[in-house]
């Protein structure tokens, strides 16, 4: 390892999170997830594995679901991020309502990541079979529900999007 004090070489970043610009001086190694949680104070984005498998930290980067534990805050400089806190401002989002209706939540730790993964599909009004929904959910681990209520909730939200 180099003896240079790398930690001191911080950079200033500006990331738009839920339509609000958040600026901070950060170490290059700061993960986007930690930026969202610690600097922007948005704690609905959860860290479950920090190696990109569980999906609890999923947020949308310029509209696309990504793992916020597999991205550095400096990489997101100048870009736009949406977290679970952006959903349903002024009333729950239909996807959130569907989760309530179908008992798609148990402990709720994985839920924000699932919502951020699926929300674009609902927004686009996609028509998906149950097998396609399973594949769409396969990048998010849930240990409580056995996925049954989650799959039903996504089906319900997609059906609402069509009516």
């Amino acid at each position, binding site marked *: 390892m*180099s003896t*240079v004090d790398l930690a001191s070489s911080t950079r200033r970043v500006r990331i738009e999170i839920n339509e609000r610009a958040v600026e901070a001086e950060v170490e290059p*190694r700061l*993960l986007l997830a930690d930026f969202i949680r610690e600097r922007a104070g948005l704690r609905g984005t959860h860290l479950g594995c*920090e190696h990109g498998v569980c999906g609890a930290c999923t947020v949308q980067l310029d509209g696309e*679901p990504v*793992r916020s*534990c597999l991205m550095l805050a400096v990489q997101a400089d100048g870009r736009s991020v949406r977290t679970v806190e952006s959903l349903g401002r002024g009333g729950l989002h239909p996807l959130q309502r569907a989760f309530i209706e179908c008992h798609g939540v148990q402990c709720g730790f994985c839920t924000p990541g699932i919502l951020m993964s699926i929300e674009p599909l609902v927004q686009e009004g996609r028509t998906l079979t149950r097998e396609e929904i399973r594949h769409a959910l396969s990048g998010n681990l849930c240990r409580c529900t056995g996925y049954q209520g989650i799959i039903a909730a996504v089906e319900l939200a997609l059906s609402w999007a069509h009516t």
Partner: protein
Amino acid sequence: MKPAPFAYDAPRETAQVVELLAKYGDDAKVLAGGQSLIPLLNFRLARPDRLIDVTRVPALSNIEPRDGSLVIAAATRQATLERSALTAQGWPLLIEALRYVAHSQIRALGTVGGSVAHADPAAELPAAFMTLDARFHLRCARGARTVPAAEFFVSYFTTALEPDELLEEIEVPPLPGGTGYAFVEFARRHGDFALGGAAALITLDARGMCRHISLTLLGAETPWRSPQTEQVLVGNPPDEQNLVEAAHAAVQGFEPSGDIHGSTEYRIGLAETMALRALRRALDRAHTGGRPT
């Protein structure tokens, strides 16, 4: 699981990337999508002094036709390639392979060149590029060179790239009209690295004989392109017996390493199954003019 400290550069031009690589060499690591590198940083299994982020170089994120070939700039996101109409039109094998790459959330950041340069033995894109006879354009301060896929992959997580070299572009030559293709794999869960997999191309001649065959297996030290398979099939009719023989020939000399998810013996058996399934599907598509089915 937080990364150890490192310095960070985000150049805007390829020339700057190359300059930085020349300056720092082994101490620096190229950061593209980060979907393989950042987990290693978080586990502190990789601890480079410096990351050179290439995703802010516009020239490195691009897909274009060039003299009939497909040219993919290295930092092009996998999701972008997956949605590329040009690619779907001429090189649908790549699209089929990409569907097996982890999950959409990973492909949204992961890059094409990143996967190739990382050279995980179970990765899909290296096998697909091997099958397609892709050529890798490398650049460093000392100059540029082109390495064919067959020479690019050296060993586990090891490629022909020198420490000061950047993978700049991947060039995929055009396929003869009517080429059938297939990418199949088997993993323990959807989205996992494959326990076994195969990529295949079959071109038939006017008499329905095999004119061109390309078959690559995943999971060994490097993507395993089987010359025996080509010998069995080229010039012969692609009947079931020949496909079975070709698949069997494909695993002669194929040496995947076993781990907790599957022994070597199992992986060889699985590879043979995958080879056969890939050949069958590619043949089906060759019969229907190479269209996706």
